[in-house]
């Protein structure tokens, strides 16, 4: 069996499916490969690490049907380096010939029969707007934990609300909540926990306009886009009761321009050197405004005042600088509000003009 396809088309498809390929294959070496399924007039490329599966279909001139698994990394690097034009792939019993222009390669294949059974979309599909979902994911997914020791926190909670859906993620140091009214993704009262890695990949794939079809099964969720399908396993377990953490009111309120604050944080935290991401940055808030400072015992100190409006009692609170920057980025608005209680209680970042997103950030204890 063989097929012929344009390099640009194939390279895009390989790069997309490759994002689901397992970085550590463990007991299933075949997961280091991309499954190529040759069908009449199209080739489907599949990458999977069992938690996440991405399937991409591309139009191709196909002669013969069947499947083969090619080493994903090699294929991805090869596609990114081939010149534009036609790519021909001929698949034999245990090797594949790849030709493009004057380039020729014969590479061993992995056994297609070892590739895990592909998840099929379950349940009835629901079409929702892709743009708002992508924006919500962009705001929330970075707050999910990357620590497998607490698997529930590696997921993003998607919960039905009265008029749409709510996305929530936390790593226990910060919590991001985004309401998406009008996005009727789930049945009333329903909620699911989806792995943040899968949703991060989905966010990259989602177009700014158009729709995505969502199929929610018992153990997985499938997102179907034009020619691409992403299936993520649901995370089992109960998401922490986050609602109790968000106080109804805060005594202290700082209003500041987001870009000015982000730029100043980026400058002041430089003193933290290689540890700048985790180094604390102090926000001294008073009637005069805001002053940022950072200290690294073995390097030195930095300070910068930032124009801001503050209502409340004089207060100094410190945050992990990267978590603060993530919050500023996620908030999106040009002007934002930081509400706080005291140096040891979580503060809230939100846009000054909308209430559909909030970012709860735990302070860092400082001497």
């Amino acid at each position, binding site marked *: 069996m063989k097929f012929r396809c344009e390099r640009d088309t194939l390279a895009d498809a390989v790069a997309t499916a490759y994002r689901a390929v397992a970085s550590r294959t463990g007991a*299933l070496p*075949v997961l280091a490969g991309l499954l190529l399924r040759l069908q009449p007039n199209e080739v489907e490329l599949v990458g999977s690490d069992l938690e996440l599966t991405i399937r991409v279909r591309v139009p191709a001139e196909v002669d013969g049907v069947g499947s083969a698994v090619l080493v994903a990394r090699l294929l991805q690097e090869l596609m990114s380096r081939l010149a534009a034009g036609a790519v021909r792939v001929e698949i034999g019993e245990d090797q594949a010939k790849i030709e493009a222009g004057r380039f020729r390669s014969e590479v061993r294949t992995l*056994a297609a029969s070892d590739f895990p059974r592909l998840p099929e979309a379950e349940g009835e599909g629901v079409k929702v707007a892709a743009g708002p979902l992508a924006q919500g994911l962009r705001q929330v997914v970075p707050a999910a934990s990357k620590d497998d*020791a607490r698997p529930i926190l590696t997921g993003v909670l998607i919960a039905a609300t009265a008029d749409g859906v709510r996305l929530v993620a936390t790593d226990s*140091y910060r919590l991001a909540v985004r309401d998406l009214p009008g996005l009727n993704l789930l049945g009333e009262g329903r909620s699911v926990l989806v792995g943040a890695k899968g949703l991060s990949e989905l966010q990259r794939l989602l177009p700014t306009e158009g729709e995505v079809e969502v199929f929610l099964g018992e153990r997985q969720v499938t997102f179907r886009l034009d020619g691409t399908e992403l299936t993520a396993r649901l995370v089992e377990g109960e998401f922490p009761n986050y609602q109790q953490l968000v106080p109804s009111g805060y005594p202290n309120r700082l209003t500041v321009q987001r870009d000015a604050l982000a730029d100043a944080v980026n400058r002041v935290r430089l003193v933290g050197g290689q540890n700048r991401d985790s180094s604390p940055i102090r926000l001294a808030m008073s009637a005069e405004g805001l002053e940022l400072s950072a200290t690294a015992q*073995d390097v030195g100190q930095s300070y910068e005042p930032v124009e801001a409006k503050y209502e409340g009692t004089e207060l100094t609170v410190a945050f992990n600088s990267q978590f603060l920057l993530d919050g500023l980025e996620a908030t999106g608005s040009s002007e934002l509000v930081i509400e706080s209680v005291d140096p040891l209680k*979580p503060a809230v970042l939100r846009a000054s003009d909308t209430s559909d997103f909030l970012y709860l950030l*735990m302070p860092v*204890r400082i001497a």
Partner: protein
Amino acid sequence: MRLVVARCSVEYAGRLGARLPDAVRLVVLKADGSIAVHADAKAYKPLNWMNPPCTITEVDGVITASNRQAERLVIELHEVLYDSSFELGQDPGLAKDGVEAELQELLAARVQTLGAGLRLVRREYPTDVGPVDLLCRDGAGRAVAVEIKRIGEIASVEQLVRYRERLDRDGSLSPVLAVLAATRIKPQARVFAESRGVECVEVDLEELRAGAPADLRLF
């Protein structure tokens, strides 16, 4: 996870031929598709095994595992003494203790633990033979090079002496004092350190941890 304790014999054919004669052994069949035959010895090492991907079949008291490399492991069960399966679920994985890195972080935050009046100049202070873990100044302003180990051995002292020699070439630091800090320092290392003018300090990791402020979390 299926555990079978049985009197069995085992034949392996593949890269070489091997046979285990009739004896009581433990056969472990894991959910990852692997199979291993254990004796009551050799710690974690099986007598014979096959890694996935392989095909495992069981017919009339004979378990056969085979793979694409044409290897075959045939276990004949002559008398089954125990046969049970358990659902272990997903393993959270091994959490390793990054003791030296953690020690360095904890000691950097409280260098006074190593000597009264010490203050930190820099972590990972570079020398042309590698970075010394901490460079400090004592109460009298003298430079102090600190090497941190989980277990202090002779090699640790030698390493620290090399760093001190390089640092001593810098007029702004010389003469440099040297401190070896570890949760345990071997007696030979202590003697050697004394002969090289290196001070030894044993530190208690749990005490250091207890003294460190806990991270504030939402839950």
